């Protein structure tokens, strides 16, 4: 199968400022690609470039096997859902959905048939004669989706479509978009700054920062094997603990020493990684620091830790402590015995840790 979207060596600059640097991404039909990163990382600009709404400075964009670099948006066989929904304020919902077909000269009967089909699919039939101003945020969101669906394009583009909704509705719509993707089997590119949205929706994630791709991979690759400190810190909530540590080679593996405010350092032995430099940054997800009796694999090692703060959060309880000069969060069972100011024995899952070089921030293992 040829890729549905293929971006090669894309550069984009405004005057002398480079917004996007050497972007290379491709996705297969049916993929759900999420572009994620903090604001200003260039993800929306990249989406606009894919749509043809922004000219690019170098490189090429192919959609459905055809070179679309110089093609105007209307001929790229795409549909787009915008952050503000961008519904035409003076047109009814029905007119909003059919406007594109009308412009392209699709006959009335087809327009009506497709409109009915999409309206049924999104359950917006009762809204068809209203104007956008009379709709709630969630309804507008559906209409915007309808406008995209009715095109039946090769590629759907979403520009932070859920960021204007309240928290509860956002979760609902997220599930709906995911269901829609399953049902249609369509190819989608989705921009968000919300890493949870990225994890739940994507089949493939691109993490961006400063106009440069940091890592491309499946959600589990991105989560479990972040390519650098930025990705490690950005993806996951609470964020991955990044603890400065010393590594020493030993007969049965590598000894990892983590300094503590008082008392001896914690020493853990990693049997999987042998070729580490002396100074490393140890990345441990909060859920990989746990109550010893609850989680445990053969790579689990326990150590006594002084708990500073305990934050119950319903399903889990977070315990915060000081290790290697950093606040370190552990995700514990909600009925944990951890108390602030007391020592608690916690187990570290060394089968899942990441190591990064302090100077370059790159992954070592």
């Amino acid at each position, binding site marked *: 199968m040829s890729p549905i979207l293929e971006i090669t060596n894309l550069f984009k600059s405004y005057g002398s400022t480079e917004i996007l640097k050497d972007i290379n991404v491709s996705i297969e039909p049916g993929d759900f690609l999420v572009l994620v990163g903090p604001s200003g990382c260039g993800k929306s600009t990249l989406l606009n470039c894919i749509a043809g*709404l922004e000219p690019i400075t170098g490189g090429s964009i192919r959609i459905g096997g055809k070179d679309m670099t110089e093609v105007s948006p209307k001929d790229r066989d795409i549909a787009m859902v915008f952050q503000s929904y961008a519904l035409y304020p003076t047109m009814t919902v029905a007119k909003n959905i059919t406007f594109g077909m009308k412009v392209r000269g699709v006959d009335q009967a087809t327009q009506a048939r497709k409109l009915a089909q999409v309206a049924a699919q999104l359950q917006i039939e009762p809204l068809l004669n209203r104007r956008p101003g009379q709709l709630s945020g969630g309804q507008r969101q559906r209409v915007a989706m309808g406008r995209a669906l009715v095109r039946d394009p090769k590629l759907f583009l979403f520009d932070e479509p859920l960021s204007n909704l309240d928290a509860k509705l956002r979760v609902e719509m997220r599930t709906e978009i995911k269901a829609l993707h399953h049902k249609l089997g369509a190819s989608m590119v989705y921009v968000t700054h919300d890493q949870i949205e990225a994890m739940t929706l994507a089949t493939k994630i691109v993490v961006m920062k400063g106009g440069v791709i940091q890592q491309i991979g499946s959600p589990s690759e991105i989560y479990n094997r972040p390519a650098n400190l930025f990705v490690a810190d950005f993806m996951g909530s609470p964020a991955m603990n990044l603890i400065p540590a010393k590594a020493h080679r030993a007969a049965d593996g590598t000894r990892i020493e983590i300094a503590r405010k008082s008392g001896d350092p914690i020493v853990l032995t990693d049997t999987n990684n042998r070729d580490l430099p002396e100074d490393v940054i140890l990345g441990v997800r909060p859920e990989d620091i746990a109550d010893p009796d609850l989680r445990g694999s053969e790579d689990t090692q326990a150590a006594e830790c002084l708990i500073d703060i305990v934050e119950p959060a319903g399903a889990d309880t977070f315990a915060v402590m000081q290790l290697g000069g950093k606040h370190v969060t552990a995700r514990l069972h909600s009925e944990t015995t951890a108390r602030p100011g007391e020592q608690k024995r916690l187990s570290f899952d060394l089968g899942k840790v990441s190591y990064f070089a302090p100077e370059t921030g790159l992954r070592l293992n």
Partner: protein
Amino acid sequence: MTDLSMSRPQGQSRTGKIILRWVLYLALGLFALFYLMPLFVMITTSLKSLEEIRTGDLIALPREVTFDAWRTAWSGACTGVQCEGVRPYFWNSVLIAIPGVAISTLLGAMNGYVVAQWQFRGANVIFSLMLFGCFIPFQVVLLPMARMLGIMGIAGTIPGLIFVHVIYGIGFTTLFFRNYYVSIPSELTKAAKVDGAGFFRIFWSIFLPLSLPIIVVTVIWQFTQIWNDFLFGVSFSQAGTQPVTVALNNIVNSTTGVKEYNVDMAAAIIAALPTLFVYVVAGKYFIRGLTAGSVKG
């Protein structure tokens, strides 16, 4: 909105409050009299006979209402050698104002749409240059414009005056539309582009239907400007093509014959009626235009 009247200090007595209130209304009333007085004097004078004007009081109501002065002002007063009243000049003003307003508004809408939604390199510089053009004292262009109109063969004609008003009006009309369109999210234009609509289609189907309020503001502003213009009118017209402001000035300052103050006043009211009418009917939009024209933003 702030409600300062709720904040009277506790210590103040109730009667004190009431007295203060009366003083306030009295002051507002006196100012209202100041603003209304000239209009009142104009109207009453225009309804008096010359005899009564000479013997009577400036602010007295007419003893005997007569519309003779209005008739003379409309169709008999002398603007110099001709004595046809302001009627032909009133229609000149109409003939200048309607196309002038229509063309400059249309151009302003298109220009504003480009500057706000179709930014290209240099668009802001062009907009700034056009904006600065609004603020020049027109004296600085009078001489070359007089020659240019001659070269174009429209000196002293109504099309010539329309041309001048359009040229020096587009700065403001562009500003009005630009400021209005800039508040419309650019995503709307993007969505329409993805839908396959082009430049004119997007303007026609999406922006124009949204524009009624700003069209009203612009039309009122331009109409008031063009109707009330005197400088261009007196500089670039000739005997048959003068606008009503020029004719009014000629009637008032004509030195031949008896000074007919009642006719002067009637002519002044006639010249003022269209803009006063617009002000009374659409005052809200009139004020919006005034403030938009002065507070850039």
